[in-house]
């Protein structure tokens, strides 16, 4: 591996590329160990109730079964912040699919058969699992994820709305979405000499380590959690999950290392999902489409176990100007699994509603939808009243329109035909917060002229390992083949979870500071060469990050989509998606493009394919695998392009804003808007599928 001077900004293949294409990169349940045993989870078959009888006789009789852990037999755990993680501690069942037992056996086959033989009897209670606008449990949470105010109000929305020339009042619905990383949640746990080692499929092992420490009453330094390679997460591995806890409990119980992987079907619930959301948007504008009043009311769900409040309406606080504005969030507590982070929580579902409504407003005002967004652009954060650190939404819209060939678009819906296909185009804006969390990092120089960079960042496929290495190479000012980087291990200097699109900005700053400090010390004290026993520098950027300018800081983007709808069958195809983004400085154009098109494609998947279908009789989703819960496949993606515009912004000293999530923000709305332009049909409930179109299409 080598990188020229100025590694940052140049495309570089992933450092672990060779390991991944040769099948040698090890994921969580692929680490060899002597005397391995295997775990298999058992899930509750009722939505609400109490386990009244446990019969493990048949399971224990199964050859190879070593132990059956239930609430009657599992090791006791100490309370932690998330009650979700107090697994197998009590007989109550809070949702269908909750993990209620774990079988440990000599082989996967025996564990699986043992799990089938565990018999649990329940006293059931009536459950409520369907989110509605009038659910009796609706309330106003204290804050929404992670710490935003629940409601905001500027000006007088009601008066502004009443006085507006053009008014729009619509409700948009999105179903539950399941993260479905390709690697199911999995962990291997070993106990030896009172120490615990866990290989976890996690987006951040520091939190996993501290949580395990509290659960098992162990000092943190006796626990090590690694996540060298992680098969995707998309938020679902961002918080400590059941797998490392169960694997550690099982390993302690049987006195052997235990591998535990959830099955694909078991992921639909216990590891989080995106809540269904009901959103009402009201827009009041003048005849030219200039917004006077904007209101976004969002209703979502959480479990009875703990509160998770999706920050659905938060983007409406910052995306467009309007003197009168209001946002609210209400939450229902249902007998369902706890929803959690899924790529751009808040902005993703919120942008579907807001950007669909903006398209409807453009139609109502007879204004081009790109022009409508430009007219409502703002250099001032409309709620905070202070300028953005940088705001290049207009540049994204204009550059995207130029690249896409938007200029001569006929606004009339449902009138373009190409053979069997009705053809239309749609646009949507995107916004995502740019954060710079503090982190620790270490840089060390060896006497042989090599360098080691150490930080507990996690690369879940984002390209973080390579981007941080590029930052280190530039900060050290040496050829890339002299620099090695270690990540994904809780024994390394602690760093923030891979989430919030904050990795490159926050971890990168810490790596940059450690490497520059090392370079300075080497140059000033050792004439540029490390002493015989090497030199190591460790930094923590918590204070520097906290002291950064406080101007509102966001990445922006614009999506352009062409959709085609078969005039007879309603079949939908998306031959082209184009996104332009303002995401600060791009460290590695190759991996950045992959992240952006990955997000855009997940938005396409949300628009057309994904839907958690809940059966209220059972209080659970009926489509619990990849044959019935559809995600976008290779044939669904045709031409897809991502670009970025110059976006100078030193609100982060490296100029980085982050781009892991913004690709999905607005993407589904752009598809829905293109379908409207193609057919004249406005779909306000996702997914858009042929059964919702076929009876209503223009006669061919």
């Amino acid at each position, binding site marked *: 591996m080598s990188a020229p001077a100025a590694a940052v900004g140049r495309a570089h*293949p992933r450092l672990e590329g060779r390991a991944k294409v040769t099948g040698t990169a090890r994921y969580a349940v692929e680490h060899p160990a002597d005397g391995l045993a295997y775990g298999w989870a058992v899930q509750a078959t009722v939505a609400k109730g109490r386990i009244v009888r446990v019969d493990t006789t048949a399971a224990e009789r199964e050859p190879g079964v070593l132990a059956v852990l239930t609430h009657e037999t599992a090791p006791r755990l100490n309370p932690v912040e998330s009650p979700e993680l107090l697994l197998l501690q009590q007989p109550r069942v809070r949702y269908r699919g909750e993990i209620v037992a774990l079988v440990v056996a000599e082989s996967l086959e025996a564990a699986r058969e043992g799990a089938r033989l565990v018999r649990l009897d329940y006293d059931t209670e009536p459950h409520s699992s369907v989110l509605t606008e009038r659910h009796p449990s609706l309330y106003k949470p204290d804050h929404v994820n992670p710490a935003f105010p629940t409601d905001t109000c500027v000006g007088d929305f009601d008066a502004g709305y009443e006085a507006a020339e053009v008014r729009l009042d619509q409700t948009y619905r999105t179903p539950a979405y399941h993260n479905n*990383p390709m690697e199911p949640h999995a962990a291997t746990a070993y106990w030896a000499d009172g120490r615990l080692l866990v290989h976890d499929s996690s987006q951040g092992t520091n939190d996993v380590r501290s949580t395990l420490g509290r659960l098992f009453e162990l000092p943190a330094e006796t626990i090590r959690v690694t996540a060298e390679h992680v098969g995707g997460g998309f938020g679902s591995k961002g918080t400590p999950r059941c797998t490392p806890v169960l694997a550690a409990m099982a390993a302690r119980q049987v006195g052997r290392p235990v591998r535990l992987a959830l099955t*694909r079907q078991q992921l639909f619930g216990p590891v989080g999902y995106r809540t269904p959301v009901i959103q009402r948007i009201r827009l009041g504008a003048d005849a030219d489409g200039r917004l006077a009043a904007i209101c976004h009311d969002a209703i979502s769900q959480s479990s009875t176990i703990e509160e998770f409040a999706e920050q659905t309406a938060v983007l409406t606080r910052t995306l467009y100007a309007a003197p009168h504005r209001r946002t609210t969030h209400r939450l229902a507590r249902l007998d369902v699994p706890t929803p959690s982070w899924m790529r751009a929580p808040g902005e993703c579902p919120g942008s579907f509603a807001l950007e669909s409504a903006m398209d409807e407003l453009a139609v109502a005002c007879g204004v081009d939808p790109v022009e409508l967004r430009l007219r409502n652009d703002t250099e001032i954060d409309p709620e905070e009243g202070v300028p953005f650190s940088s705001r290049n939404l207009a540049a994204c819209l204009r550059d995207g329109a130029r690249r896409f060939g938007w200029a001569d678009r006929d606004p009339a819906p449902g009138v373009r035909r190409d053979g069997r296909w009705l053809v239309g185009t749609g646009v949507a804006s995107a916004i995502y917060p740019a954060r710079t969390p503090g982190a620790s990092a270490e840089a060390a120089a060896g006497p042989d002229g090599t360098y080691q960079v150490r930080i507990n960042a996690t690369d879940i496929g984002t390209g973080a390992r390579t981007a941080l290495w590029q930052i280190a190479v530039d900060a050290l000012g040496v050829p890339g083949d002299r620099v090695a980087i270690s990540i994904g291990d809780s024994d390394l200097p602690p760093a923030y979870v891979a989430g919030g699109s904050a990795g490159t900005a926050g971890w990168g700053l810490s790596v940059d500071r450690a490497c520059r400090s090392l370079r300075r010390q080497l140059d000033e004290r050792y004439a540029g060469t490390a002493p015989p026993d090497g030199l190591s520098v460790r930094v923590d950027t918590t204070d520097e990050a906290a002291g950064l300018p406080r101007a509102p800081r966001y990445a922006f983007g614009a999506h352009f989509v062409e959709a085609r709808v078969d005039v007879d069958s309603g079949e939908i195809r998306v031959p082209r998606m184009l996104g332009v983004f303002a995401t600060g400085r791009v460290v590695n154009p190759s*991996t950045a493009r992959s992240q952006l098109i*990955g997000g855009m494609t997940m938005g396409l998947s949300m628009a057309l394919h994904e839907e958690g279908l809940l059966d209220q009789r059972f209080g659970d989703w009926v489509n619990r695998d990849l044959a019935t819960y559809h*995600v976008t496949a290779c044939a669904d993606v045709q031409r897809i392009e991502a670009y970025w515009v110059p976006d100078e912004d030193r609100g982060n000293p490296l100029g980085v804003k982050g781009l892991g999530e913004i690709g999905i923000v607005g993407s589904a709305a752009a598809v829905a808007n293109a379908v409207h332009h193609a057919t004249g049909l406005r779909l306000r409930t996702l997914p858009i599928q042929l059964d919702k179109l076929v009876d209503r299409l223009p006669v061919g």
Partner: protein
Amino acid sequence: MVRTSPRADLPEPPYRSPVRLSVNGRPHELDLDNRTTLLDALREHLGLIGAKKGCDHGQCGSCTVLLDGRRVKSCLAFAVAADGADLVSVEGLAEDGHLHPLQSCFVQHDAFQCGYCTSGQLCSALGMLDELRQGWPSVVTPDLAAGPDGLTEPEIRERMSGNICRCAAYPHIVSAIREAAAAEGVR
């Protein structure tokens, strides 16, 4: 109940069979539980972790290997039923440390992110190119009788749709396969 002793205390299960497999040119003789899938035989018994378990139900393609030259989802096959078979997994693609053209094109085109589906994509691509070479049509082939009209993007997309990539590296997978195939003389 807890048993902590090693395998010796197990009753002799009646449901095991000897299984002979050639994997990447190396012969193996295994004694396997009849319920063991080909995927678990590779991963848990031979230590070949390249083939991945993404769904265990033949729905995601992460476990794809070549069985007697054809791509199969190894999670759907029982190892005992593959007795005597010749397997190629992702570990068998590189020769003497030199990456197969598909592997190097995947790296150069950034045709993966998390890497978990990659082994399956690579084996699937190898099998797919062979199917194409033999003239097998697909659902997007315009004239089924005439066979596929070369290695077009729609043909690749269609034929690779049994391999899900949640990171959505699809366009890069398609371009990597095209380049590798061109280097090998497939068009």
